[in-house]
């Protein structure tokens, strides 16, 4: 497997995404990338820089602002033998192009009784906390995870960004690949780490007091919360992928610790955390010594003003308080 470890410094999260795209495009001529300004422009955050120069306009395809059309075309191209990686610049914009994801890509294999496969990756990125405002800050992965037929990957660090994107591109089914722009600049801690497949959670820390289940940017945020609570020993589980979901690792951990806190950047109300709580309630209810709680964003559109946004989004401090509630209850 091609591997960006050749570079001196461990790559940043965005370099890892870039490397995964480049490596897979080198390895497989049917991989194409499509999106607004991903080609000559190198992407709104520079994630696709260099791809246009290396692979040309035939494979790194700048598109007009027509996301529903682009994603629909990606579905058609996938059925016709390509492996498209289509970008939705901000996750908030899936609202203009959900049909090709939800009603087409996710369902085609099923609707055709296995007659077609749709090897497609929908790349997008999210990440509140930078005053992006209500339409550029939402974490909507729960919506995608609700749809059977879609995989949803949410890497929390550069190494997983690389490994999971490679896996997504190689998968013969649709994958929603959710990057986090506030992680883009972060360098991998452990680049030498072994690749885990999708559907396998990672136990980031071990500890007997409670289980913390999270993904994406809330992984480093939870680590920071734990660092500030030296007396608390937690199993910290990075789910890495919401679908497939590694229920076993979560349940097994909660059986040991007896308490559980699910943390996510998405809004709590009917959010993705409910799935985890339900699985824990199903699998570990009689092993509980304390509560199973969620900590997510408050039920409001994402506010612009920094102080309000901080009050709305979960952060290490809020996670710390939620940990305390979980331990007290």
């Amino acid at each position, binding site marked *: 497997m091609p591997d960006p470890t050749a570079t001196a410094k461990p790559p940043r999260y965005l370099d890892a995404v870039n490397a995964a795209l480049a490596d897979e495009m080198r390895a497989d001529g049917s991989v194409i990338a499509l999106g607004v300004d991903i080609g000559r422009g190198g992407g709104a955050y520079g994630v696709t820089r260099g791809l246009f120069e290396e692979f040309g306009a035939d494979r790194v395809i700048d598109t007009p602002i027509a996301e529903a059309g682009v994603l629909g075309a990606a579905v058609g191209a996938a059925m*016709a033998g390509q492996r498209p990686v289509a970008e939705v610049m901000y996750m908030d914009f899936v609202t203009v192009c959900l049909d*090709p994801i939800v009603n087409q890509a996710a369902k085609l294999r099923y609707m055709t009784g296995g007659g077609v496969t749709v090897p497609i990756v929908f790349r997008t990125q999210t990440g509140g906390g930078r005053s992006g405002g209500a339409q550029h800050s939402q974490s909507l992965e729960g919506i995608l995870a609700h749809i059977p037929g879609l995989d949803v990957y949410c890497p929390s660090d550069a190494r997983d960004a690389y490994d999971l994107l490679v896996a997504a591109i190689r998968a013969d089914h649709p994958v929603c690949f959710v990057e986090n722009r506030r992680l883009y600049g972060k360098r991998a801690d452990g680049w030498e780490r072994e690749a885990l497949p999708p559907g396998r959670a990672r136990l980031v820390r071990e500890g007997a007091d409670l289980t913390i289940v999270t993904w994406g940017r809330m992984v480093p945020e939870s680590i920071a919360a734990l660092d500030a609570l030296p007396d608390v020993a937690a199993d910290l589980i990075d789910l890495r992928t919401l679908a497939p979901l590694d229920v076993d690792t979560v349940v097994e951990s909660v059986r040991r610790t007896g308490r559980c806190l699910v943390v996510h950047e998405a809004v709590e109300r009917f959010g993705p955390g409910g799935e985890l709580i339900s699985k824990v309630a199903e699998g570990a209810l009689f092993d509980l010594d304390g509560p199973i709680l969620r900590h997510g964003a408050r039920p409001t559109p994402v506010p612009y003003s920094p102080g309000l946004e901080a009050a709305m989004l979960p952060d290490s401090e809020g996670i710390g308080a939620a940990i305390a509630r979980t331990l007290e209850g």
Partner: protein
Amino acid sequence: MPAEDEDLKIEPASAPPDPETLRERLRTMARIRAFEEQVGRQFREGNVHGFVHTSIGQEAVAAGSCGVLDRDDFITTTHRGHGHCLAKGADPEPMMAELFGRETGTCHGRGGSMHLADASLGILGANGIVGAGVPIAVGAALAARREQAGRVALAFFGEGAVHCGAFHEGMVLAVAWQAPVVFICENNHYAEFTPSTGAWGGPGLLERASAYGVPALRVEGNDVGKVEAAVRAAVNSARAGAGPAFLEMLTYRMGGHYEGDAEPYRVEGEREEWAERDPIAAVDATLAAAGQDGVAKALLEEARQEMEAAVRNALAAPYPEPEAVMEYVGA
């Protein structure tokens, strides 16, 4: 009245199809007609489920368009897609079984009428979402362009679909990519309960399409020869790398929007008028004038027998095992 408009760039061959080809197309049309008749009947019998939309009266568009295609060319179609699938080579037996929800169906009973698809024939699917098939066809054409093997994609859709964002974005992309895709807008004069002519103001479909930079042509859609000539010209041009084209096929939906539709909205007298332009009768008359009598009757008879057999076999076929409900999810 259907009438051919100015040709904007596509140049359909002027010679009518030879009798051999005409006969072949008539056979396709007869098979579509017989299939749809059975679908209606079997729906009333309770053997066909859900929402079913038939294409009686529109057979020439399917037969003429797909008649031009190779097996590995692509099509996408709509909720009203039986005819296109049959014309593209789908076997009516598994199709009927699909509508009966049987394991032997084209999609093993998972899809149903609105989701018929057969990738081995380039049929990338009927679609329950109006407009959704348009960008899918453009994407297949993009793939075809990459391959450089001269494949093309045809997108079938109704005149009601042109108002959708998906149509617009599909057109924009087809032009941007100069993709080998032909847009076949089947103007059957109704979108559900709404007569389409003039319904939403503005110029006609051709003006709309031309404004994207796509050559556009209006075609007498009940004349299979004219359909075929127009599609051939567009397809040849797309194969040659000249990009997309748009064809408005003037035709008429003889049945309801769906099976069971009471059709209170139907404009009076209109159906009778169009019945006189029946696409099957038209070819039959042409052949008769060339000395071949009773061809349609014979082909319809043959087709009806074929479809009766399809029904018998579908009825005898097993349903999918309920335990297999999770098969094919994919992720």
